[in-house]
Structures are given as C-alpha cells and as structure tokens.
C-alpha cells in the first residue's frame, strides 16, 4: 500500500473508531495507565494489519476484531486472570439479563457481586460479553469471533443463564447481611 494512503487510512480509522477501541480497553483494564498501554497496542496492530484489510467486513467490525484479538494476547501470561471491568457508566448493562426485572435491579444495586461473577467467566465468554455490552448484533459478534450467528446466540444465552444461576444461588454477602438485618 502507498505510504501516504496508508497514513491517511490509518488516521481516518482511528478517528472514527477511537471510542470503540477505548471501550474495549476499559472493559479489560481497571486503571488508566493499563488502558493507555492496551490502546496503543491496539493501534500498533491496526497499523500492522492495515495492509491485509480487504474491505470484506465493515471497518468497525475489523477494528473490534483487532481490539478483541489484541486483548486476548495483551494480557499474556496473566490471561486467565484477565478481568472484565464493568461500572455503572457502562451502557447496555441490562442486556446481560433478558427479562428478569428483579435480577436487573440486583445487577444495578450490587455491581460488585456482578463484577465477581463476570470475572469467573472464561476469557472467551468475557470477550463475548464485552461485545454484547457494546450493543453489537449477534451477526456482528459472529463476524468478529468467527462463529455462526446461531452458535453465538447459543453461547451468549448460556453465559446469561450461568450468570443468572450464580446470582440466584449465591446472592452477595451485602444482600445477605441486609436481609439478615431485616
């Protein structure tokens, strides 16, 4: 690819997708320094992969792929301990629970408990949840991960069920204390 053209394209991609990249970085890193490091690592990988981009998928899908694939490598040795960070600012949190109003409330009021449960998920499950929290369609998640849409739907359903079961079976210590006090 022509040097100037590559430069232009790179700038445009980063300009249009920096928020997406930043969101993924926030899911995986609690502190800003680590977020910055991961953001930079993703940028390096966008640059390195730009020559292979054939425009077969949407740019945003391609950027998400790079961000997710980098996150799987970024954590290196500690990848099993990789945490998925959510906070009250994360939009679409309600997507984690489909119809259960009570659980939705529990999620919102007991973020710490939800955080613990999320961190017990596998690396791949965390990646899927992070994409779901980005409000991507099943089709888009499937394009990013490389599975069929149905397969993604089933996997996400399983994750949600797992979370639901865990939250019902083991309510947080805080909740227990509250109910005991009552």
């Amino acid at each position, binding site marked *: 690819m022509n*040097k100037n053209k590559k*430069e232009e394209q*790179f*700038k445009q991609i*980063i300009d249009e997708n920096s928020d997406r990249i930043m969101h993924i970085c926030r899911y995986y890193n609690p502190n800003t320094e680590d977020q*910055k*490091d991961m953001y*930079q*690592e993703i*940028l*390096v*990988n*966008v*640059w*390195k*992969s730009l020559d*292979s*981009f054939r425009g077969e998928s949407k740019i945003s899908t*391609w950027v998400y*792929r*790079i961000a*997710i*694939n*980098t996150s*799987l490598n970024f954590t290196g*040795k500690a*990848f099993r301990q990789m945490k998925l960070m959510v906070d009250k600012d994360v939009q679409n949190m309600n997507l984690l629970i489909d119809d259960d109003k009570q659980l939705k409330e529990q999620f919102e009021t007991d973020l710490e408990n939800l955080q613990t449960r999320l961190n017990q998920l*596998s*690396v*791949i499950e965390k*990646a899927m949840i992070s994409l779901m929290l980005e409000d991507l369609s099943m089709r888009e998640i499937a*394009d*990013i*991960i*490389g*599975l069929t849409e149905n397969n993604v739907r089933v996997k996400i359903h399983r994750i949600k069920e797992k979370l639901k079961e865990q939250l019902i079976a083991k309510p947080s210590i805080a909740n227990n204390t509250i109910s005991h006090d009552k």
Partner: protein
Amino acid sequence: MQNPVLQIIQSAMINNTTRNNSVNNMDQFIGKLQKEDKRNLLLTRNFRWIMWSLAILYAIMFIVRPFSTNTIYEHIGWSLYVLTFVSFGFIFNYLKKEYQQVDYGLPTLKMLENAAKRYKLFQRKVLLASAPVLLLDAGMVLVTFDNENPETLLRTILVTQALIIPAVGIGLIIGISIWRKRQKPLRDNALEMINELNK
C-alpha cells in the same frame, strides 16, 4: 523489556489530551511506526545480505580454489556450500515474513487457529530449515573426502556427522527450550480458546 514500538508510541502520545494535540501526536506516531517498519525491513535485508555475501564468497572460493585437488567431488561439495547459504537466506526470509504477518484483523477463531499452527513445534515449514543443514553436511563430506583413497569415505562421513550431529543437537535443545518457555504457553492458550469456541 518493553516492546520498542510501544515505547515509540508512548512517547508520541504522551499528554494526548486535546483533539489538536492528538492529531499532531498521531502524525509523529505514524512517522515513528513507519521508521520501525523500515528498521525491520532493514534487519531482514541485512541478514539476507550476509547470507548472499557468504554464498558469493564460497562461489569465489569455488572458482579460485587455492587448496583444491580439483576433483568432481570437490566441485559438487563447494556448489553445495554455496547452495547452503543461498537457501538459508531464502528460508530465513520466508519464515520471518510468516512470523511478521500476524493479521489481527482476522476473526478471533481464525486468528487463534493460525497462532496454534504458527507455534507448533514440529511443522513442515520449519523442516525446510533442515535442508541447508543437509546440504552443508553433504558439502563437507564431499570437500573433505580423499578421492584417491575411496576406502576413507565411511570414515569421512562419520567424522562429518560427529561434527554436524552435536551442533544440530545443541541447536535443537536451545530451540526447544526457547519454544517451551515462550511459544508453547501461547499455543496452549490458543488451543484452549479454540476448544472452548468449538464446544
């Protein structure tokens, strides 16, 4: 040790607080990335040049042959030396390209499958690297073989193997140790994730 590319970007993106700053830093950042690309390319070229130079040197020695007894075996032996360095150059280039072209834009499953393949210990591509060693081995036998005493052929072959096999063995031990420490964990992680995705 921190990735040099990351160091470059970090220095380029420090205080990236305003949009204007971000654009300025981005230009600097891209410039440094291009420099890094150039440096990598230069490293590959340098190694290729060393191999080509050795091939040329051996080709000259083949033509001049100051200590030559001028036998057909010696002719073939020197040709094999030249071929050894030429093929080392090509193979190194090919393998380096393979390792450098990691496409993070592929779907995760595909990227993981590629990683598992890339970090496999014994793969057909790496066996390619044994071809120059075999050429060198054959070259050494033919160059050192005393044509006038054919009965010494077996001894020449054995002496050459006594040199080559320990050298290859040491190389293998070092290579496998490096693989176990650096690449095996990556392959194991990739396989684990592939397994989970295919469940």
